[in-house]
């Protein structure tokens, strides 16, 4: 079983790679944007969850 020969033979394999990279990149951009937009007070409340027990 030659692993690399399968990958070469899949049509448009380069586009799949591009799509995966884009998903990866977009996910992280969105996540980091959301993380920095969320207000500090919410995070302070959440980080106290283990302590309020």
């Amino acid at each position: 079983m030659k692993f690399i020969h399968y990958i070469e033979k899949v049509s448009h394999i380069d586009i799949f790679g591009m799509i995966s990279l884009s998903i990866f990149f977009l996910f992280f951009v969105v996540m980091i944007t959301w993380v920095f937009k969320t207000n500090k007070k919410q995070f302070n409340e959440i980080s106290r969850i283990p302590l309020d027990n």
Partner: protein
Amino acid sequence: MQVEKFYYDNRIVRAFGYATVIFALVGMLAGLWAAIQIYYPAASLNFAATTFGRIRPLHTNAIIFAFVGNASFAGIYYSLQRLCKTRLFSDKLSWIHFWGWQLIIVGAAITLPLGLTNGAEYAELIWPIDIAIALVWVIFGINLFGTIIKRREKHLYVAIWFYIATWITVALLHIVRSIELPYSLTGSYSWFAGVQDALVQWWYGHNAVAFFLTTPVLGLMYYFLPKAANRPVYSYRLSIIHFWALIFIYIWAGPHHLLYTALPDWAQSLGVVFSVMLIAPSWGGMLNGLFTLRGAWDKVKEDPVLKFMVVAITCYGMATFEGPMLSLKSVNAISHFTDWTIAHVHIGGLGWNGFMAFAILYYMVPKMWGTNLYSKKLAANHFWLGTIGIIIYAVPMYWAGFEQSIMWKSFTPEGQLKFQFLETVTNIKPLYILRSIGGALYLVGAFLMVYNLYKTIRQGKFIANEEAEAAPMIKEQAKKKEYWHRVLERKPVAMLVLSLVLVAIGGLIEIIPTFLVKSNIPTIASVKPYTPLELQGRDIYVREGCYTCHSQMVRPFRDEVVRYGEYSKAGEFVYDHPFQWGSKRTGPDLAREGGKQTDSWHYNHMYDPRSMSPGSLMPQYVWLLDNKLDTSSTAAKIRAMQTLGVPYPKGYDKIANTDLMHQADSIANNLKKDKIESPSNAEIIAVIAYLQRIGKDIKAAPKQPMAVNQ
């Protein structure tokens, strides 16, 4: 809103806690025994079951799955209830989980010394146990997700995401690594072969580190550190970012175990790049942990729990810097196959995993017994013994790794190799002795902990069901017609099942076609399948765990090519189910062993390695000379190999044993010429056949005549 009264289940935590302590001692003792055998091979007591090759997997499985596994379950079940503000989903499932896991461990403890193994690191357990692991893991998952669904605290605190990521990914890893074809009740061959098997193995192995030894423990850190320090985590934002980055990036790092091997270059490069990127999210976790103690370092002086956690997190940071460095090809060229790898593993294992397990035990036991820790002083002594033990373990191993690697690569001014392989081993023997002293100190510290916890339990009163109350979660009502995804977000079970289905589809689409292709085009025409006798010999090689000391992968370095022969090509391993490239050279590489020694040399060497190699640290394998080869399995093995695509002729399984006995007789005759009497059906004959075959095929490649005009 009316508050509801409920009770946390401490009994299940206690059970897992006891199991943690027991297997901590068992696993560490196995490790110490293995360590002593390396410089004192007679410590194997000359039993097959207790040789290094069989004790090493016992040690790794006991530490990873029995010690860290039970500790993680204890900590997860303790923290999950309190973070979700609810009792565990099902008491019954909790206990099936507990007993199921311990039975698996007992199964491992019986099968591994018997030599029943898959020959794959950290995935040695035979296929019936693999099935049991899957079942128990599903039960754990139902309990985990059921509790999350039952929760009264709406927000899923960061620790819980780590637990979820652990569960999903370990399930995936276990399934893929366990894709094997049984040929008997206790034996199976990996569906993958050679290079593919190597990639699957180290995708699995590295992610076992990531998702069994790191993510659950990070989750535990995010709960127990704030609790012990009584302050919130430094930055919740950072925990979000590093969580997602960690689980995305970690998966790709596996190929860093295969640098400069026959793995294709593109895969090696991917592994390097992602391993280096991994520094960021790993250190995010470390910094988040350490910075949580900003302004509270005086507490660390007083509290043993915090002491252990600080060193644990620091060792985590060290190991996750060292790991990426070891993933650089230039560094890896020096470190691979040496004790540097072992040093690295044990900084993480002893420092991060061990100390975190100790910390949460020291935290939970007083709490669950309603008392204080019996002796802070004893705990502090444990801390110092453990810390010094880690240092005395690691430093000699760093030294040994560097020294051996430099010696391997040393040439005389005339251009010859300066040192015989054996010299490089005997030279570092004192360092092996030091290492076992370090490990022993660490173990003594653990015994102090057992005593301390025992006295704590004695002076307290166990709280089986801890009372708590909280308002139930407000069921969100749909205010107006909602976007479909918002509806899904309120139905976690549907969400979970849908996600799993999606992930499974992708996985299946990728994996199934690779098994349906029938043709197996060998890269190298002269590489042929193993003969039946060689196959039996190879399975004995796997059984005895020879790969734990001997590699079979000549790297394309000048010193290796001079010492061992032609460097290893991917095409040579296409019929190797499982691959046996190995990770360590306590003994020399065997990839080109075929034809280097006479049959009688091998016979004598197995009987007593020191008779052929004075000063050797290899144990004696006398039973190979006495045991009768079990030829009843030959037909089933050949059929299994045929299913896996190895091109034995159709119907060959029926006549395989005839060829086997033929070849065995000729080897026995060779031995007779050297005055060694051995029955043809002794196991040693099969092992000799295998050893004499390794790496020979490419030497037989016929010279192609120049094609003039066709």
